[in-house]
């Protein structure tokens, strides 16, 4: 489950901004947005072989939107979480070329966090209709008790 941190470190040596750390979650790699694709590429290819994108989602940390790429190596059954911070209304670069599994989750994340999607073959809204705010941002509130009671 937990990959060897030093090996990952080595694999990402070319990526300047990559920081590898072990947290409660597992092995986390934090990279800058512009080096994200390179980092994922390094992880996917080579002997590290993380061919599967388990999940892709965002976390609104209050200062930025953290995009989490959860990748997995099936042969060794190891998980790595790659995180990169994007500013609000920033640009999310599609990684579908590396991981086709990202096609829908990327659209969803971009939509629900109000990001722009770059390099995606079909960058439309996915879940909601036009005019609905990016709902997963912390700044967008849910309905209050009074609102729902009054209907």
């Amino acid at each position, binding site marked *: 489950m937990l990959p060897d941190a030093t090996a990952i470190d080595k694999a990402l040596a070319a990526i300047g901004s990559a920081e590898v750390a072990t947290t*409660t*979650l597992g092995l986390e790699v934090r990279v800058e947005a512009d080096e994200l694709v390179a980092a994922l590429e390094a992880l996917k290819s080579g002997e590290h072989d993380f061919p599967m*994108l388990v999940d892709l989602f965002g976390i609104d940390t209050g200062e930025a939107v953290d995009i989490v790429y959860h990748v997995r190596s099936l042969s060794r059954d190891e998980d790595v979480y790659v995180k990169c911070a994007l500013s609000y209304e920033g640009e999310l670069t599609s990684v579908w070329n590396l991981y*086709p599994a990202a096609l829908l*989750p990327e659209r969803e994340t971009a939509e629900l966090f109000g990001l*722009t999607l770059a390099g*995606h073959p079909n960058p439309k*809204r996915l*879940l909601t209709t*036009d005019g609905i705010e990016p709902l997963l941002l912390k700044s967008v509130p849910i309905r209050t008790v009074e609102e729902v009671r009054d209907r």
Partner: protein
Amino acid sequence: MSELHDTSYEPGLLAEGTFDPGERPAGIKRIPRGVEHLATEHLVVNVGPQHPSTHGVLRLVLELDGETIVNAEIVIGYLHRGIEKLGEHRRYHQLGTLMDRGDYMSGIHGELAAAMAVEQLMETEVPAKAQWLRTLMSEINRIASHMVWFGTFGLDCGAMGQFLYAMRDREALIDVLEAVTGQRMMFNYVRPGGVLADLTPEMESAIRTFLRTIDGYLDEHDALLGGNEILQMRVKGIGTLDRETAVAFGLTGANLRGSGVGYDVRRDRPYAAYPELEFDVPVGSTGDAWDRYTVRMGEMRQAVRMIRQCIDGIPEGDIMAKVPKVLRPPAGESYACVESSRGELGVHLVSDGSDMPYRFRYRPPSLYSLQALEEILPGRMFADAIMLIGSIDIVLGEIDR
């Protein structure tokens, strides 16, 4: 109603990035694009959201040439109801009610994943008896869920009888689940730290009664649908997803195993009482719809086997660990996954130390399975599309969340 129009066919809020497809990823035959980018000589049909066999409110936009699908686009969001957002406004032990309604066919699995994620943050030790009960309920739920899949799969290919026989068996399972948990679908049974309630002897004997008949019923299903030459003619060799594609699309569960990758969370990342159970993981070879079918049928038999072991092996003890009434896990993140009926159902929790999650992420296995449709539909007949939707077994509740 003016504010409600569906504009998914115009460029939405998101910018239309200048698109350069670059190199296609390995194993992917085509670049998935929206249907409206293509020529208009063909017939463009909407399948769904209201269609008898899109398993809820999935909408597929198909471009047909005669009856052959040229291009397919998935449109979802008709059931988007904010499970993730609402999860940030629920206390930890209330998460189960949301998880139930995500993958509503197999609620126990969802609850289990959420409970495990919380336990991981809290570092709670769950009593052995609770673990066994969780396993037992999971497997019962798995059969119930597969029965719905099986029935609707029959319905998709026009075999009405199949659906009703499957519903008969599902009713039997639901009766057990209702007796144990109190509801027919939204169980709210697995809680952080344990389970809600114990089995009574009557329930145990009800399960045993069921176990006596289920083998015969499974044989009947196998003979009625699986043994039917017409069905074999229709599903063999369609919708083939080879290993590489399946992994690339992030498929999990029976869909992945149908493609020949023997990854099963229950075996490879054991949780609950699975390490103590004996079971096989059925694996397909070519990854066509028939393989997925046989894998699921095999899973049902394995589940029966596990239920037998569980019902005999439940240890004595508590069913609930000592957990505070209001959970305040320390700040941190956790990811817990279970093998739900549809694949790896994961829950990613971010805690900031308060009594509600800071971020609650539901990893829906169906969403990832669904993407593979855009890959396997083109080139198939329209009738195959219906079968293929059925064969990947999706639940819209968790796709849209």
